[in-house]
């Protein structure tokens, strides 16, 4: 049975169809979840896609995190369900308190759309279980507020628990410790700023994103 992956749509989301396409090309069964529905329909995993939920007004994720769907997703995550936040989704997860830290405006104050090189720091997460440590991946970033920030205390925790799962080999946005992706202490909730769904098709320039999305499908499988 292919994995049922729920892709959340908020007003202002815009990468939901891209996530749908990438996951179905990889053999999963993605479906859309509407932000106003509390019922997330027995999915095996949840993806919060990129975009500008509620316009990113006030702060990215600040309004989205109060959606009925998010209440359900918070429960789902607390019960060990795999949850992936891509870009805006990462911001939503930090606002919702499912991941530590916060994402600020990029150093240099510019939106950045370009391919970057990432390094896999740990394979112990729902996003990297099929990668190898030290593997480098070429995947695009596409954000204005991807500059990961946290207190020293949080950073130490992230480091000692191995919760930093991807780093930039060349820091594009000012993120602390070159952080591109982190997971929670239970390792089932992951947020990353780069867009793996944009790197799953040879015609689009890179297929390195597949490793990450396949890992996540694997993680969803383990959750069943």
């Amino acid at each position, binding site marked *: 049975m292919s994995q049922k992956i729920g892709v959340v749509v908020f007003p*202002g989301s815009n990468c939901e169809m891209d996530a749908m*396409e990438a996951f179905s090309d990889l053999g999963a069964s993605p479906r859309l979840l509407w932000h106003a529905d509390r019922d997330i329909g027995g999915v095996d995993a949840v993806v919060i896609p990129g975009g500008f939920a509620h*316009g990113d*007004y006030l702060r990215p994720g600040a309004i989205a995190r109060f959606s009925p769907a998010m209440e359900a997703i918070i429960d789902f995550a607390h019960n060990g369900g795999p949850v992936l936040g891509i870009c805006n989704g990462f911001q939503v997860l930090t606002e919702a308190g499912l991941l530590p830290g916060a994402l600020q405006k990029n150093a240099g104050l*510019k*939106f*950045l*759309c370009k391919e970057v090189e990432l390094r896999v720091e740990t394979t112990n997460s729902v996003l990297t279980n099929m990668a190898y440590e030290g593997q480098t991946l070429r995947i695009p970033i596409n954000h204005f507020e991807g500059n990961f920030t946290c207190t020293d205390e949080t950073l130490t925790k992230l480091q000692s628990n191995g919760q930093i799962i991807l780093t930039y080999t060349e820091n594009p946005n000012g993120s602390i410790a070159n952080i591109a992706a982190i997971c929670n202490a239970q390792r089932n909730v992951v947020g990353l700023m780069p*867009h793996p769904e944009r790197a799953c098709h040879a*015609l689009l320039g890179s297929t390195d994103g597949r490793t990450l999305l396949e890992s996540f499908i694997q993680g969803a499988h383990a959750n069943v």
Partner: protein
Amino acid sequence: MADPLHRSLGLTDEELSKIIEILEREPNHLELAMYSVMWSEHCSYKSSRIHLKRLPTQGENVLVGPGENAGVIDVGDGIAIALRIESHNHPSYIEPYQGAATGVGGIIRDIFTMGARPIAIMDPLRFGPLEDARSRWVAEGVVSGISGYGNSVGVPNIGGEIVFDQTYLGNPLVNVLCVGIMPKERLVLGQASGVGNLAVLLGSTTGRDGIGGVSVLASAGFGNEEEDAEKRPSVQVGDPFEEKRLIEGCLELLNEGLVVGIQDLGGAGLACAASETASRGGVGMDFNVSAVPQRESGMQPFEIMTSESQERMLAIVTPENLEQVFSICSKWEIRSSVVGKVTPSGSLRIVSDFDGEVLGEVPASSLHEDAPLYQRPIREPDDMDDATADEATKLPKPERIEDDLLDLLTSPSWATSQYDSQLFLNTVVGPGSDAAVLRLKHPTSGVDTGRGLALTTDGNHRWCAVNPRIGTVMTVAESVLNLACVGAVPQALVNCLNFGNPENPIVMWQLSEAVDGMAESCNAFELPVIGGNVSLYNESQGTNIDPTPIVGVIGLIKELVAAPPGLSWNDGDRIILLGPEASGLCGSAWAFQKGHRRGSLEMVDFELHQRLCALTRSLVTERLVTGLHDISTGGLGVCAAEMAIDSDIGCTLARIPDHISFFSESSSRVLIAVNAERIPEVEDLADQYDVPYARMGLAHGDMFTVKDLLSIPVSDLQQKWNNRLADALDGGTAQE
């Protein structure tokens, strides 16, 4: 003494007489205000319409030609593509961020109005020189505005242009093109029909922003500081989040078949949308101003009718469907209110309530069809003969040709890296190549057709300053060649004619010549013109900009199995020039750099150009070349330099005897890089297509060398290329 009202609204005495004739009485203030915005240059095309008629608009694939919100073509597999380009020049000079942002918002609405999902935008931009502080401030703000709005509304930006030149010092050009995709059967037109149907206003509240924007901003030039300051309150603020919800909500309404017609609100606001939908449907409308949700208190009916508040749509709905329309709107958090009723009368009646007082009443069609048409005086410049004789080849040759080359290198990536160019997983080639390439997926099933769409925008004010007719021909030719460089066959063209003050006969001559050039080349290339926009009064302090027709051309790629070769060459590749020998320097970027702006251009040989394009497409589809690039701005020199920069590999070139052949921008030429083993095939093919070619040299090493002319490290070229815009703009910009 104060001006009479009609004049202060921008209407002439003759125009007022005509209104009185139509109404058979004096118009009241509300009616006058509506005529003033609808008969403005921006909405009525009163100076350009008689010329635009000369453009070819027919084609087998054309579903909708000029006159609607966007042109639409049939691309097969049940898919239709909508395309449109618009200018937002004047607002962008006054408030660069919001001016550009609302330009993006406006063009996107034109596309989903037709039933198409916007899938890409492009942004041909023109600014004053980088040395000028205000121009830097404008450029920085415009690019941020396009980035801020486009990224957030979720439409990728896949290309454009960014040009800096003295001619745009007080008048930047911000043109934005949008392309959308739809299943053919979803195509809708912006018309009201069915007496008793309702007009539902969707989206933002209406405020005082942009009152009379089209007549004040888009239809007059900039004079002095004080007057400009008075025009300022007309600037609007964009809300990409509202627009995103409108896109989704409106497409859902169309998918469900719940609307009879739909129309975006742009220039001239509700006055335009209400009268246009009614007159297209051959009906009338009662329009209830008090039903319009207002952002500010105490708004006058004329303010409500002419406000240009952004992110609003007018949908025509049958009463049976109203509840369902409301429920889809509320799902997407879109404000919706019934503001009008379709009547059989043919007149647009503005009422204070559906059974209240009539505040104004005009024949709906008179706002459009009766708009004045001007055959404005045309005059060729007096010194044409002298100007033509002034050849740029007579300029002294460069002291250090390396320096002239370096001065011509500017990467647009400072701007393009601020744009999401990848959303929707279609972008095979984004900004930075000759043309952008998108995968063509079916808009509803998502199935990949295995084919591709290609898009390019081009404009060249330098060529058009020298000769507006041939310059325009060369521009269209360049577009067609840009598409060939990615393997695409051109399908349709849209244009934005950016010109100076139409009351100046020389400007009208430029416009007329440019239209002739466009018609001539579109006929030759069998390219239908499916839409466009005219932006006049691009002048500041009495100086008109150089004529700047911008074209956007869409092409199809039959089989998109791999990304086209792009600009890069490999070490060891042979470099071959396809096309005739260079001729002349007039209108070239090099000549302009030396302050030379006159002379003559050589007419494009259409047949040769067609053969070159066909050859280029074959080379690309049969993968016979490693890399290729057409020769345009900066000539062969800049073309080769860009290929070296992109490859990070140098070259040694020969057969370029002097700066003339190095910097000439004459048409119909492509530089290709070929693996040595494929040379016979390539040359055979060129012979078959009867296209001249010449072996120019070899790609190798880290020096960019032209025998007997120059030698410079590729890294020096890269340095200038990469840093010019960042150096000028990253440190912060400020108003003068």
